């Protein structure tokens, strides 16, 4: 079993390591500190943080509603909410345009309100949120279901109002899952490419995030693309590794 696991791990790790061997280390620093690279990295970090915040704000209530209430059509809603997870991002971008673009469903309304979303940094954040939201909802809903309602029930009989229960029992209990969900969301937002390209475009400093920059560099300078990929990879690893405290290990013995 351990052998199979090792094969599986190698299957993932080998390509990553192989990519590292392709890096032109001599020019690495020059490649990744070019103006456009730095602009893209900074934009990516800013938008990913914003998208993660949005994911938390929207995702926590969604997870709570999905895990703690029952309503007609719940299963369908859950499935649909998880779709961006599995949708090719380009299609996600098309869908976002269809909703929020100038010719989209809400386009006219937004135009009247003087709001232009598509092809702005806001669009980047929305595209990232769209693809990253399911990660948060999924982690959190699972944790909520597993945690069950027993502690919440006890808290209620001790006189805690629902908001108190939420703040002092429910959220602390699922905090590890919330954190890891947020980290996954952040990382997914950081890596988002297809939906951003379609919905937000690729304008330096405004909408051209790191993955778009990498894609563009591939066209002209594959070395730079590989170097930047490595940067993206390292940033992702760092964020995931630093924040993703593992769920406290298997609790002792019975």
């Amino acid at each position, binding site marked *: 079993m351990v052998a199979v696991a090792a094969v599986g791990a190698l299957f993932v790790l080998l390509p990553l390591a192989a990519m590292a061997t392709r890096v032109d280390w001599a020019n690495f620093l020059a490649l990744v500190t070019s103006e456009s690279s730095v602009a893209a990295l900074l934009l990516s970090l800013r938008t990913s943080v914003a998208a993660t915040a949005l994911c938390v704000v929207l995702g926590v209530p969604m997870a709570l509603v999905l895990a703690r209430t029952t309503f007609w059509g719940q299963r369908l809603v859950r499935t649909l909410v998880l779709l961006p997870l599995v949708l090719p991002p380009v299609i996600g971008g098309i869908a976002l345009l269809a909703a929020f673009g*100038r010719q989209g469903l809400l386009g006219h309304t937004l135009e009247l309100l003087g709001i232009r979303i598509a092809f702005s940094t806001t669009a980047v954040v929305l595209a990232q949120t769209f693809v990253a939201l399911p990660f948060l909802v999924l982690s959190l809903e699972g944790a909520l279901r597993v945690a069950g309602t027993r502690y919440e029930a006890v808290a209620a009989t001790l006189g805690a109002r629902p908001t108190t229960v939420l703040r002092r029992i429910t959220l602390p209990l699922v905090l590890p899952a919330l954190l890891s969900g947020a980290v996954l969301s952040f990382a997914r937002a950081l890596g988002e490419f297809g939906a951003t390209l*379609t919905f937000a*475009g*690729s*304008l330096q400093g405004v909408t051209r995030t790191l993955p778009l920059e990498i894609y563009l560099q591939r*066209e002209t300078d594959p070395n730079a693309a590989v170097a930047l990929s490595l940067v993206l990879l390292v940033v992702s690893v760092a964020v995931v590794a630093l924040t993703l405290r593992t769920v406290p290990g298997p609790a002792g013995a019975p």
Partner: protein
Amino acid sequence: VTGTSTNTSPPLSGSITVFAAASLTGTFTELAKRFEAKHPGTTVNLSFAGSSELVTQLTAGAPADVFASADARNMARLTAAGLVDGEPVDFATNTLEIVVPPANPASIATLADLARPGVKTVICQAKVPCGSATVAVEKAAGVTITPVSEELSVTDVLGKVTSGEADAGLVYVTDVKGAGARVKGIPFSESGTAVNTYPIAALTASARPAVSAAFVRFVVGAIGRSVLAAAGFGAP
């Protein structure tokens, strides 16, 4: 047509956004820098993607001032949508070239070699611009290539060759030039039968028509010509 403007009554100022085909990434980055140097006070923002991607974005309301397409068909789509200000101007041409890894493992010399059994050839799918050019040269040469992959963009064709996965591919001359020593280009006689023309146009939505017009003139002008030629583009 001249690239020097002697009669700039009010000095140009403000920023414009140029949507340009991905294959223009290198040249337009260079041109934008030179334009800004020549007209202090102007800024040129560039957005690169596949031509058809860009048209989709523009019709969906992307704010842009100038569009440079890699083919006439996509420019026509935009014109049909009523977004083009005036007549597009052709500013460059591009032709196909055979591309092989530096060592040329399959010993490719002619277009017909690409059809040899055992040769792993990648080309563009017929629906994308470089693909329709490929169909044209095949027809002209009377060659039927059986590719191992019909890629969705010319970049992917080039990628398969630079990575050594494929023995040969058909890409634009400019791509071969851009890839430098990582590939070897092999010109072939039938390439002239499929000349791809690049048009550029200012857009109706432009908030700074003067700057947009100036940029279009700049690209079409002498400096534009020389930068494009250095990258391998032909004259229109």
